[in-house]
């Protein structure tokens, strides 16, 4: 489902690749079958955080999720900032624990000391 569809309250049923049979009267030779799908939870929309006017003079955290190569990629991004936007302070952090575990202490640190974050990499 596209995010736009989700945002407008569309249904999972709109993902169906072939049209749904009519859920109506059962005529000759027709039978009625139960929809086997479970019940998705409602989605609580989260307003995005306000953006910065500029990154110049700001502190940007680079967060390594621990996937293979994330550190190499983020260090190249760190180097890019050094070459192209030297007024940006870059802080590299490896998230604690395996990639699927939360790290609330790091989020607290970034919120207190940083202005923005770049997280990599989704594999």
């Amino acid at each position, binding site marked *: 489902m596209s*995010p*736009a569809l989700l945002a407008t309250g569309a*249904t999972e*049923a709109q993902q*169906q*690749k*072939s049209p*749904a*049979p009519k*859920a*109506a009267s*059962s005529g000759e*030779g*027709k*039978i009625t*079958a*139960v*929809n*086997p*799908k*479970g*019940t*998705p*939870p*409602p*989605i609580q*929309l*989260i*307003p*995005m*955080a306000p*953006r*910065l*006017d*500029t*990154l110049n003079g700001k502190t940007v955290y680079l967060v390594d999720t*621990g996937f*293979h*190569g994330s550190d*190499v*990629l983020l*260090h*190249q991004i760190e*180097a*890019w900032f050094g070459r192209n*936007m030297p007024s940006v302070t870059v802080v590299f952090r*490896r*998230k*604690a*624990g*395996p*990639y699927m575990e939360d790290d609330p202490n790091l989020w607290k640190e970034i*919120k207190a000391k940083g*202005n923005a*974050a*770049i997280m*990599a*990499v*989704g*594999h």
Partner: protein
Amino acid sequence: MGIPSAPLVTKAFKDLAILNAAKRGMPHERICFTPHPVWGKTPEEVRAYVEGPDPVSGKPLMKEIVDALTVPLSDEDKKGGVVTVSTGPATFTDTADNLQEFYLNNGYTDFLPIILPTEEKVDAMLKGTSHKPDETVGKMAAGAYPPWSYNVRQVAASAVMAGCRPEYFPIVLAIASSGMASLFSSTNSFAFAMVINGPIRDKLEFNYGIGALGPFAQPNATIGRAWTILSKNLGNGGIPGDTYLGSLGNNLNYNNVVIAEHEDASPWAPFHVQRGFKKEDNVVSLFRGLGVVPGQVARGSSANENVQFDYQMSDLFSTFTGFFGALIIADPLVAARLKEQGYDTKEKLIDWLYKNTTQTVKDYKSRNYAYLFDYPRALRGDEPWASWYKMPDDAVIPHFPRASDFNIVVAGGQTNAYPQAGNLSYGVSVSIDKWT
């Protein structure tokens, strides 16, 4: 966090990243993409990624990242509130052929023909339990998304589709109530297994003799299949690129590894009794991991020598990852021989295996899962990984972190003394009787 952020994902996971953000409440999250893969690339190659275009938008990647953090939000970006998601009408009406095609084309099946869950067949399935059709059974998340919920009637539809008889339904409900899906969104192509214990094995005529793990009995075949079909329908699993990412996939996902323990031929306590149930209880226990391999390939399995099954198993486990456990499936002939060797309880064998299945620190560190899961734990100070990572390369450490990572069940027809073993971790045991 309350500050602007830019997630960076490789192109292969575009759909997953976008849909995951949307289903977690940020349909307009500014996700940036690099070429795939990043893994294994040199710094020079990755620098080219950074200085090149985002392969999804075509715009320079670093401009995408800077824009993600600085371009003002639109009204849509600031939107709050709740979006209700539906999966369509409660029933569908058409000819049998058209419905079969519709269920297949829309991912409701495992792409094998199904028994259509007509209202009559679902009602018949519901007679297999005393629980009310609208009673909530549980929640399941087969992908990276928040879990879906489901009731007894919704579980019944998947049980019908898989070919289950109504008398099998309490087992399917017990599995569904666990919330454990048999399809998972990892790139690893995971496999799943279940162990059935108790008198219900004979009452339903499970096969635990010759070909115990094969397609030779209806309950073994259909209950295993039902786990995968319900994981798709109730947990929203098995959508390639969205809720399923296994690069190669796993053939075991068709009906999973179903093991009815051969309790009468086993010299040891049944698995469910080890887990605190009574022998007369009916219990299903669920496992997850990477798959099952035959014991005949291991050192120590030569028929011309005095076969040492303990050594054979220890050798077999050398290729396993310690991230998952080891599930030994012993033919009764293997179990009898092990008892003759002095292992008169499963616990004694497990103790020997834990102490004698070892590896060097160098070999351990070279394993993918050690880097991905254990090394981050070591950095955090979690034991035993923190200590293992401080040891010299030639130090010898256990292959599995805990003795409890080993589990043993007995099944098979005694046509030969062959064990099998799964790189599978124990998940949970659920009472079947509760769902009768």
